[in-house]
């Protein structure tokens, strides 16, 4: 089967110059939930930042569905291979601004933000009581995590790259969120690449990768 997402090689070291990984490449098929596991501090988050082109990786090539992206095309790449970051960052403003902003940027200008779908998804993850005009700085950590996740899903890129998107959520809510992510990733021409803390959650992945000692291998 032809690869849907191909990127690499990526190399990175931490602040002290210790090598996190070297020459790591990814080649993934569509319609899958792929998990990345490995010891903490092993560079999983850094690897996701390289895949989503947030980290500077001049030697890496990136290919999605046969189309190559580099240089000035990287914003377009990120709009298709989007990161749901670990600490659920928010832009200063309201819930609505946070969900909607990708649609106001150049790469999303032809697409429409769907209010009804947003409200529906918020209900699914237990945020139905949250008004759209609420300032995000007043949200709790758990609310922010769910909002960040919904933002990724509403944006509906080709690939969602998520860094521990379920961290700190109640088990019930976490399972609903994982279902939503799976629904997203298991469609044709979509892909979910996810770092998960909980082995039980990773066990549901279609393909499990493990980053340890600087190498990315199939997890046993």
């Amino acid at each position, binding site marked *: 089967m032809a690869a849907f997402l191909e990127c690499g090689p990526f190399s990175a070291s931490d602040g002290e110059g210790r090598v996190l990984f070297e020459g790591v490449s990814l080649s993934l098929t569509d319609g899958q939930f792929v998990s990345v596991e490995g010891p903490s501090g092993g560079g999983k988050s850094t690897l996701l930042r390289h895949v*989503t*082109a*947030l*980290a*500077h990786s001049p030697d890496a090539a990136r290919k999605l569905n046969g189309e190559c992206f*580099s*240089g*000035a095309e*990287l*914003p*377009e790449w*990120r*709009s*298709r291979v*989007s*990161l749901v*970051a670990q*600490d659920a*960052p*928010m*832009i*200063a403003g309201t819930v609505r601004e946070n969900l909607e*902003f*990708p649609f106001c*940027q*150049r*790469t*999303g200008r032809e697409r429409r933000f769907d209010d009804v779908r947003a409200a529906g998804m918020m209900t699914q993850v237990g945020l139905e009581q949250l008004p759209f005009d609420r300032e995000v700085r007043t949200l709790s950590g758990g609310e922010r995590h769910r909002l960040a996740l919904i*933002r990724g899903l509403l*944006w509906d890129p080709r690939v969602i790259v998520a860094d521990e998107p379920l961290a700190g959520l109640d088990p019930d809510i976490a399972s609903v969120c994982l279902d939503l992510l799976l629904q997203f990733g298991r469609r044709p021409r979509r892909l979910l690449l996810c770092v998960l803390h909980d082995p039980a959650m990773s066990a549901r992945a279609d393909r499990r990768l493990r980053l340890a000692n600087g190498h990315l291998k199939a997890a046993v």
Partner: protein
Amino acid sequence: MSNFIELGPLQLALATVLIFAAGLVSMALQLGVERRLGIAALRTVIQLGLLGLVLEQIFALRNPVLVVGLLLLMTVFAAREAVTRASRHYRGILVDAWLTMAATCLVVGGMVTQVVVGVEPWYEPQYVIPLLGMILGNSLTGISLCLDRFMDHLVVRSAEIELRIAFGATRREALAAPLRDAVRTGMIPIVNSMAAAGIVSLPGMMTGQILAGSPPLQAVAYQIVVMFMIAAAVALGAMMVVVLAGRHFMGVDATLRLDRLTSAKN
């Protein structure tokens, strides 16, 4: 223009008493600033003294090459000073600051001296040097505030900037917020002093002209020109310097390169 009281060495010596008074306050309250105050006072005397001597020569010679040379030298010092005041640096910051200073001087200074005031000949040092000096002095403050705020914004709000980038923001979109924030910060001092001019404070230049015997309305007219000139210079300079700085921290690939920040050496 000659009905003013000349100041000689005796008068200057008497003024020194004031600095000693300030130093005594510092010592009495153990503020510890007396040393810095003393050095600053000494620098003021030496720097202004040298400037006076140079200006006397340049005014006497009225040579365009000398005037332009002095102006260039002033832009270099202004750029250096602006960079020294910023708490973070990057490679090439001095070049960016200098380019900005030179460009604002050329555009705004050129407009004011050649079009508004209509100086004859074009390099007449009596007008060109003080006017451009004022542009430099004020854009120096504006540019250093602006640069400082810009880099600070990049660091403190990097998560927010990267969030936009993660969803496909272009360089222009990703840097729009830090740019706005920085230019606004850089313009605060001049906007404030324009708003307070004449009510809270008598601007320094106007005061000087009045002391030197100019009719107050003439001094006011010059002051208005100068304030508008400074506002334009600061706005243009602030915008230009952050656009230049932005290029160091983000290429067309819109990757945020905070690794290019260095902390100030002193």
